[in-house]
């Protein structure tokens, strides 16, 4: 077989560290020196910048690089892993031999010749922001500070930050996998505190993606994020106590999609289902949501924070239907789960860095739009809450219980949005919360690009999205007592 030409690609590790194809085969050979079914190498070179303005001063600026190589050997269900932050041949070989200790059989030979993974180009950045002029980034955070303060005199504390990175990766495996990618990531965040004589409140906003610096000079500019953060802080100054107990809940479009991430996404990661530790184990083909709910995980959306050309095992990402018209269709898989479960690899094998073992993770997870007009959804609610912005969430995948914390929410009384309420945690049960979705809006929106997901101590960037939806019953964790006539203050 003729090896495909790798010469026309930008070959970061070949050029900067003098790595050759022969070296890679040699390292993989060492990894399989005690047997094993599979071995891979993950080379990473990450450069990053961050800036923070506080009290209208640029108080911190930092830059750094982190580089290394992780070696994995898989033997049956067993994984051996070792890494090095020194990319010299002797250190990589040492790591390969350490990882090899997981197996104890005669040596195996990796397949000869690498096969380059089909490459998408979801984030064709010409000048990565990490290489752009630092003065332009300083301008961004200073503009955000100014815009937030100009919004209202009650905005008295503003912090604006900007962070970007460029991650160059190379993944090669004993099955011939060869994938390179150059993954930009940038984001801005603004947080504000509004103060009056006897009250204070906070607001926050942010966004970004796998984008170049010019992204922040378009619609999603510092003023956009600053005004949004300031608006939320001012609004919260007058928030009433949130109600407590079960009630109708309407979620606004966009970031409230974090519901899907917590309630169903994690429970559908293949590793939990292979081990039967997920509340969703064995539910494929069963109804887990109402007819109107179709939930997708999609790693192929251009410029998105959760997107990847290839996952961290070198597999191209894809669009995966998790729930179709309420029926559970599939899991999110990496190579190990795919092999052990006999299912397709959906290209969801991700890791935080070269120090970490990959596992099934979400990319961009969202619900498709339905037919309902968002105004009609609000009008249909007699008494409930309308939650439009959230902090984070968490799930216990074994019993299915999940929470997500509303940071901007309102009372709905007799079909009308009335007063803003204080932040409250919403809690529900993953396998049945979507069965109570009675209306799905026609206004699907994706989040602005700030999500980071944690699993087993590994953080990876993700996206979420959702149209306006109505959930007939969900527990709201406020402090106000209910009375027969409505909600008391």
């Amino acid at each position, binding site marked *: 077989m003729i090896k495909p030409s790798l010469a026309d690609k930008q070959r970061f590790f070949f050029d900067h560290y003098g790595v050759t194809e022969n070296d890679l085969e040699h390292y993989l050979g060492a990894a399989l020196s005690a047997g094993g079914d599979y071995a891979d190498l993950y080379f990473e070179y990450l450069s990053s910048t961050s800036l923070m303005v506080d009290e209208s001063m*640029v108080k911190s*600026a930092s830059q750094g690089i*982190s580089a290394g190589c992780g070696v994995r050997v898989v033997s049956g*269900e067993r994984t051996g*892993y070792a890494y090095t932050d020194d990319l010299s041949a002797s250190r990589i070989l040492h790591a390969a031999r350490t990882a090899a200790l997981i197996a104890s059989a005669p040596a195996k030979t990796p397949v000869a010749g690498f096969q380059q993974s089909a490459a998408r180009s979801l984030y064709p950045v010409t000048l990565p922001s990490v290489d752009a002029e630092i*003065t332009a980034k300083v301008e961004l955070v200073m503009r955000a500070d100014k815009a937030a303060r100009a919004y209202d005199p009650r905005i008295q*504390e503003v912090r604006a930050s900007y962070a970007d990175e460029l991650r160059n990766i190379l993944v090669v495996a004993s099955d011939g996998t060869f994938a390179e990618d150059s993954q930009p990531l940038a984001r801005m965040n603004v947080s504000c505190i509004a103060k009056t004589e006897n009250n204070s409140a906070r607001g926050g906003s942010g966004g970004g993606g796998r984008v170049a610096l010019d992204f922040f000079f378009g619609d999603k500019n510092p003023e956009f994020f600053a005004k949004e953060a300031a608006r939320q802080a001012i609004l919260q100054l007058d928030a009433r106590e949130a109600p407590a*107990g079960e009630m109708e809940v309407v979620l606004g479009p966009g970031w409230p999609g974090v519901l899907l991430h917590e309630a169903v996404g994690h429970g559908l990661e293949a590793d939990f289902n292979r081990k039967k530790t997920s509340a969703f184990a064995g539910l494929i083909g069963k109804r887990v949501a109402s007819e109107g709910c179709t939930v997708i995980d999609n790693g192929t959306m251009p410029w998105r924070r959760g997107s990847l050309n290839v996952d961290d095992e070198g597999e191209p990402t894809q669009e995966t239907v998790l729930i179709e018209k309420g029926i559970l269709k599939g899991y999110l898989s990496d190579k190990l789960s795919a092999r052990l479960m006999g299912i397709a690899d959906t290209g969801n094998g991700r890791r935080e860095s070269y120090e970490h073992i990959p596992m099934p993770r979400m990319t961009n997870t969202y619900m498709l739009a339905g037919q309902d007009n968002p105004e009609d959804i609000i009008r249909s609610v007699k008494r409930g809450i309308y939650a439009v912005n959230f902090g984070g969430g968490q799930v216990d995948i074994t019993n299915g219980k999940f929470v997500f914390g509303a940071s901007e929410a309102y009372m709905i009384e007799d079909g009308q949005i009335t007063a803003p309420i204080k932040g409250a945690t919403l809690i529900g049960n993953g396998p049945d919360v979507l069965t109570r979705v009675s209306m799905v809006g026609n206004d699907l929106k994706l989040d602005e690009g700030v999500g980071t997901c944690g699993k087993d101590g590994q953080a990876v960037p993700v996206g979420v999205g959702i149209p306006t939806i109505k959930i007939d019953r969900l527990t709201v964790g*406020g402090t106000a007592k209910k009375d027969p006539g409505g909600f008391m203050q």
Partner: protein
Amino acid sequence: MPSTQLETGRPKLETDLRSLAQDIVRRAMNGGATAAECVVREGDEFSTLVRLGQVETLKESGSRSIGVRVFNGQRAASTYSSDFSAPALDRMVKSALELSKITSEDPFGGIPEAAQLGSLTGDLDLYHEDVYSLPGPDRIDYARRAEKAALDFDPRIKNSEGGSFDAATGHKVLANSHGFVGEYRRSYCSVSAVPIAQTEDGAMQRDYWYSVARMLSKLESPEQVGKVAAERTLRRLGARKAKTAQVPIIFDPTVATSILEHIFEGVNGDSVYRGASFLAGKLGQKIAGDNVTIIDDGTIPGGFGTSPFDGEGIPTRRTVVVEKGVLNSYLLNTYTAKKLGLKTTGNASRGLAGTPGIGPGNYFLQPGTRTPKQLISEIKEGLYVTEFLGHGANLVTGDYSRGASGLWISGGEFAYPVEEITVAGNLKEMFFNISEIASDLEFRGSVASPTLRIDGLTVGGE
């Protein structure tokens, strides 16, 4: 008691990393910095997970990294690298000097004054090589034994996320342009089990338990860890929702710790000077009941939060944060202390890059005299919380709302498990409503709390 004698500039151990840190500081100063600080970290980690008796993962590695912070007058910037080659270190220093031209003049910026710098002397009992003393197969056996003890405990425990054994060591060096150079090593090992129990109708519950220590010989037996994990998991089986109500709540130590952390976040100088804390401006005022005394002590030998100096080279110390309900001290680093016109409390925490933050030493609530059982026996109808889900504390307003699960208390005893409920209130009132503090203080990390009873919170459920 630990000695608090200082040993500024009297190095005990000469290592390559120590001279490297000093060299980087010198290079930054030669390049035009008015002050500089360098941190070097190296560490080794080992971890193994055994699931259903079989090894699932085995990980072993080490890494190191270096960071420099420079001042150009009152302008600060920092850079870091995992690459220790000469050109990479050169680039790191040059980039920091370049970056310091674009940051703002901050009148409060700078490294600590020379007179404040120093390090605790004496053996702080932080490093024991025995965490790596077990041969490979015995380490795996630790994990296997913990899981097996859980699986064997009860037939309803049918599955598991595994048993694990972890060991790690870390070495940290800090040097600055006032001539400070200090270093310390710390070790750590832990064993844990995460069993899954199932009822006849298929409903599953998972819980965990662990033991952590700075030396292997102080680790609890894997059998004990597995047994407690099993008990904690089994008591969750058959959980139901609770009715929305205001009832007394008992928080077990694992969740009480997170409540105590809200006071830590509230007295963190960074939140205080920005007015971003519900405790800002409350120094000298009552913020909790008379029974509440909170201490931060970075000097306790063998402690998980102990170190000889903080992230800026200030010797650690003991600070009474809250004394009989009165806020006695904020927790500060050099910058936040200057902003507030106070003195640093030696709580600077420093990553590789950025400005130093604020971290706890050994931070704890002083225990009372009664047992958790006595506290529970006095409650007619109430809730015992064993787990929180989500975050849900707003430090600016004090608003508090979290997902929870635990056990319902009826007639002074546990009646049945509950889940899918919320606990809500406001932090400003919560600490006045701590009506009981039990005697069971135990450190499983740098923050520790005994069992607590808090009244006046709202339970959200059906």
